[in-house]
């Protein structure tokens, strides 16, 4: 249990980061996990005139893992270019789908490595992925 629900996950599920939508987003994505009803609306904000992310903001509800994952995504994104963030989403997805065989890379994913334990629980991978899928969708929508 403690491997899956690391303290940072429990803390973030109670005190989220980046919570609350703000005007001026480059793009926004709404994602639903139909099996459990988890929902998220996530915004990507860009530094004016650049392709660098200034902030990720989100609102939603769901399990501790999906909520913490959204916070960890919001912590990771600022300062990265769209391309960098896209490749890190792909890295995170690969780790999540690895059934526990790939340790997420802390240099590239930061505190989101705390979600590494999720990959052993196939039913929960979608919970961890929800915010990242929303981020990917928002990046694809944001005008170049």
């Amino acid at each position, binding site marked *: *249990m403690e491997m*899956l*629900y690391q303290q940072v996950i*429990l803390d973030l599920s*109670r005190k989220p980061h980046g919570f609350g939508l703000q005007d001026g987003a480059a793009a926004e994505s709404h994602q639903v996990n139909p*099996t*459990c*009803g*988890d*929902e998220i609306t996530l915004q990507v904000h860009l530094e004016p005139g650049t392709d660098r992310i200034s902030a990720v903001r989100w609102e939603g*509800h*769901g*399990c*501790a*893992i*999906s909520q913490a994952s959204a916070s960890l995504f919001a912590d990771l994104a600022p300062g990265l270019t769209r391309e960098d963030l896209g490749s890190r989403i792909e890295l995170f997805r690969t780790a999540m789908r690895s059934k526990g065989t790939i340790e997420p890379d802390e240099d590239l994913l930061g505190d989101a490595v705390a979600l590494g334990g999720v990959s052993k*629980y196939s039913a*929960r991978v979608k*919970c961890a992925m929800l915010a990242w899928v929303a981020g990917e969708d928002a990046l694809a929508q944001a005008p170049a």
Partner: protein
Amino acid sequence: MLTLPRTIAAMSATAPALQAGPLSDPEIQAIRRDFPILASSVNGHPLVYLDSGATSQKPTGVLDTEREFYERRNSAVHRGAHTLAALATEEFEDARGAVARFIGAGDDEVVWTSNATEALNLVAYAMGNATLGRGGEASARFRLGAGDEIVVTEMEHHANLLPWQELAARTGATLRYIPIADDGTLRMDVAAETINSRTRVLAFTHVSNVLGVINPVADLVALGHAVGALVVLDACQSAPHLGLDVAALDVDFAAFSGHKMLGPTGVGVLYGKRELLNALPPFLVGGSMITTVTMETAEYLPAPQRFEAGTQRVAQAIGLAAAIHYLDVVGLARIAEHEASLGAMLVEGLSLIPGIRVLGPGIGQPRVGLASFDVAGVHSHDVGQFLDDRGIAVRVGHHCAQPLHRRFGVTSTTRASAYLYTTRDEVAEFLDGVVAATEFFGVNS
């Protein structure tokens, strides 16, 4: 042909105590020995299976019956002149008879389906076909149009909501619903107005799969029949736990699934009154349900065959008959009594835990052996994950009843549901697990 469940059969021969009163602890232990899966371990703990509302476990008698059929008599039914085909057809029809006796129906009033969902869709789609003019004058009573109303309840499983939503959309009829009171009972005061002269179909669940509440079937049937509506009963959560007497209840149609009542997956039952089934145009069409076919038209067999197109689920049907036999030997009344005491233990135990809110009937109110609850600030998936780590299997999510959950201001709940093999020790272990989960997730800190 049916294999008598080993342990229970031995007990019924030697212990007359099996005839009356709630199930004793030795009886429950004997029952558990008939279910191989209950001896297994999950995540290093003995399995505590509290998800029988989703699907029940199967006794060896059911497993043996299916295997024996495949090993010795397997062949297609209602076609072929060889010996095995005759044996299989006989056994398949005997199984239909067993279901008919179990629910107080005639043999030709029992239609095999894949599950309850298909049974309910069958009625709705057949009515849609009648609306399109299929079935001739006999089916005129099933035609729907603008101004007609279909009434359901706010607590329906999606399987008894969406077929009616779709039917209303296809025919121009209006879908209305009877709301739920805060204690999980139906607002019968509102029902008396919602069900009116425009009501053509009244479809509702006997027992809520989320709330555990038992609906007043007789009162609803009286309201429905007083205005000439067809009454459709979702008996998924009643047939396995309380039994079902369609004749006494006087419902027009009823649906339930085999896998929730110790039987195999892939088999369900639609009950319909004889004259209604024979007037209803078919839903699925194809082999084995016709009398004469030309390149232009077809004539259909009477019920039940007219609703059983294609190769049938033979092994599953006779497996279900074996399951019904098992329930009969133990006795539905005693099972219901046992589960009511577990339901009371669940609601009393959960209500004592700070941060827990149980949906549905409160302490002392009638409920079957299940309870769904919300843990303040903790998602049901996290609760379920925590319990699973201790080998405790519960259902999490919206249990295919989103409108019901919305009514109570939650998106999901955790549900513990018992059956005849569930012990009080297991319920106690589950309650300990929920307390530990509230501590782990810091619910009251």
